[in-house]
Every structure is written in structure tokens, then in C-alpha cells.
């Protein structure tokens, strides 16, 4: 295997010493199996011990290693040096404040996820009392869902919370208050789940100006999603729901 060398230019930033971020280039040897995550590990081990970045599973399921590679949001563990000819520019995930090097502040993302109540609300089955019972008795508390019911929301449930969609979304870039693709997709995922009865609790955020209506269907979110969740579809289906909700609220008599 030829041992080629890649110029990996990384946007560095040390909050204690730097006024603003600056680019620094590192030479990284690679073969046809080297991932960007491997390259960062090489840089940290051999060239720059102070380089800071998040990572964990190295197999595109934990969502930790999101960053910009030549202006496109990618997971470092799923990005391979063999696909780039000679030069890669790595920056922290776009549209989020930089804490240090490739580490960003994801608080707005986390808060948005929490705000849309990402859990089953109002599961109508009889409560379990924690005591052992006959299997037939316990089964009454189990909410049933057919494969067809699951299929309605399954794609939207595959989100690994990596934040690439927020980095890709220009409307989030232009409006940092936007609830964002992943959160709105998750809200839609729960609204579509037959076991859930909490749609009314999620609608206010969905219906707000920072909810689905900030989206203009650019579609970049779906384009970069490593799990093919298709958040663009979820959000725009959400617009349909929100519009229906608007019309229904107009027809209801004022309380």
C-alpha cells in the first residue's frame, strides 16, 4: 500500500490565549483505510498533543465526532482520507460557538431536544404495580404496535444526535433560535407514534416562529445526515400538521 501524505489543515482555537481561530497544517501519512478520526489521533499522538476533539464509538453510532470537512459537515469516523486529493480543511461543526479547536458548544441543540418532550406521553395502558403476575395479566399493560404503525415513524427515530443537520442548515445559521432539524424530527417521530398521546404538548413549539416555520426546505440537513433520517421530510410534514392545527384553532370557539 502506497504511503501517501495528506495536508490536514485544522482550525485551531485556544480560548485562553487566542483572539480568534487560525489554521494550522499537519502532514498525515495515510492508506486506503485511514479515517479522519484516525488522522486526528495520529496528529494528537505524534504532532500536536493539545489538539481537542470529541469522539467515542468510531463507528458512526454515537454522534460525537461531527466536524466540517472542506465546508461540509461530516462524522470524522465515517470520513476517509482516500476520498480527498491532497488537502483537507477541518473546522469545528458550523453554526455552533467554538469552545476550543474542534469542540463546540451544543447547549442550544440539547435544549431544543429537551424542549420538544422526546418521550411517550399519556401511554394509556393500565399501570404496572411492580408485583409478579400471570403473563396474560401483565400483557394488558403492554402497548401494542404493529409493524405498519412502527414504519410510520421508524426512519425518524434513527437519529444519533450528531448535530450535522444543524451545521448544514443555513436557516439555523441565520437564526440561532431555530429549534432545528433533529429536534423537530424527533417531535414529529413522537407525534406519529401510536403509543403517544402528547401531540398537543409539542405543538406550541412546532407552531412557533422558531419551529417548523423557520425552515425553507433547503434540504441540506437530509443531504448530510449519516443515518439517512431525512429530517427535511419530517419538518415539512410537520408544516402540514402545523397548518392543520392553525386552521382548527381558528374554527374552535374562543375559550
Amino acid at each position: 500500500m502506497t504511503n501517501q501524505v495528506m495536508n490536514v489543515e485544522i482550525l485551531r482555537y485556544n480560548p485562553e490565549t487566542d483572539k480568534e481561530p487560525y489554521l494550522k497544517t499537519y502532514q498525515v501519512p495515510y492508506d486506503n483505510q485511514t479515517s479522519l478520526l484516525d488522522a486526528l489521533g495520529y496528529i494528537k499522538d505524534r504532532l500536536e498533543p493539545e489538539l481537542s476533539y470529541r469522539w467515542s464509538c468510531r463507528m458512526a453510532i454515537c454522534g460525537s465526532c461531527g466536524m466540517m470537512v472542506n465546508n461540509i459537515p461530516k462524522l470524522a469516523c465515517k470520513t476517509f482520507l482516500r476520498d480527498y486529493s491532497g488537502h483537507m480543511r477541518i473546522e469545528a461543526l458550523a453554526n455552533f460557538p467554538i469552545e476550543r479547536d474542534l469542540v463546540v458548544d451544543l447547549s442550544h441543540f440539547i435544549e431544543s431536544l429537551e424542549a420538544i418532550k422526546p418521550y411517550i406521553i399519556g401511554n394509556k395502558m393500565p399501570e404496572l404495580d411492580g408485583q409478579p403476575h400471570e403473563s396474560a395479566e401483565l400483557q394488558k399493560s403492554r402497548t401494542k404496535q404493529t409493524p405498519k404503525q412502527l414504519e410510520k415513524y421508524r426512519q425518524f427515530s434513527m437519529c444519533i444526535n450528531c448535530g450535522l443537520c444543524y451545521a448544514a442548515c443555513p436557516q439555523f445559521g441565520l437564526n440561532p433560535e431555530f429549534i432545528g432539524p433533529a429536534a423537530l424530527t424527533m417531535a414529529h417521530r413522537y407525534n406519529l407514534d401510536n403509543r403517544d398521546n402528547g401531540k398537543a404538548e409539542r405543538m406550541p413549539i412546532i407552531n412557533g416562529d422558531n419551529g417548523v416555520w423557520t425552515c425553507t426546505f433547503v434540504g441540506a440537513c437530509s443531504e448530510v445526515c449519516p443515518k439517512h433520517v431525512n429530517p427535511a421530510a419530517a419538518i415539512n410534514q410537520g408544516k402540514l400538521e402545523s397548518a392543520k392545527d392553525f386552521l382548527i384553532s381558528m374554527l374552535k370557539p374562543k375559550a
Partner: protein
Amino acid sequence: MINTNPKRSNEPPVWLLFSAGGMVSGLAFPVLILILGILLPLGIISPDGIIAFAHHWFGKLVILVLTIFPAWAGLHRIHHGMHDIKVHVPAGGLIFYGLAALYTVVAIWGVASI
């Protein structure tokens, strides 16, 4: 912190109009531009059929649909486009949807005068 009970957005009505208009312009404008913009001025088709169509009540209805809805769709997109290129238009909503409303009134009056 995120406001968990924000004010309801006013977007739905204009979005619904935009959706209708986008569909009308998407399905009908290409053939319409072909007919009125190329075939008619080049004399390949005669204006008589179009004139007769416009004098019939059904034709007038069709003309209203073909003009009003796409106008709302186009102006809605331009309004959002201003935000995309960071051009701040003061009272943008009022201006763009006001223009659409004006166009609607003028179109109705125009068609009624045929």
C-alpha cells in the same frame, strides 16, 4: 433557555397559498409560457381561441386561478429570499403580502372587466 410556549406563527395561511400557487405555476406555467410567450407571438397559434376562452365564465375562473395563486407563491418566496441573503426589508411581510393582495384585487377587477 428555550421558550416552551411561544406565540403561534402567522405563516400557515401564506404557506398554504404558496403551496397552492406553487403547484398551479409548476403544472401550468411552462405550457402557458410556451403558448403565450412563443407560439402566439410567432403566429403559430391564433389569438382568437384565447379571446373566446377569456370571455367564457369558465375561462375567467381559470385565468383567476392562473394569476392569483402563483403571484402569492412568487412574492412569498421573494419575501423569504430577502431573509436568506440578509437583506432587511422593514415590514417585509406587510410589503410582500400587501403587494400580493393588491395584485389579487387588480386581477379580479381586470378579469371582471373582460
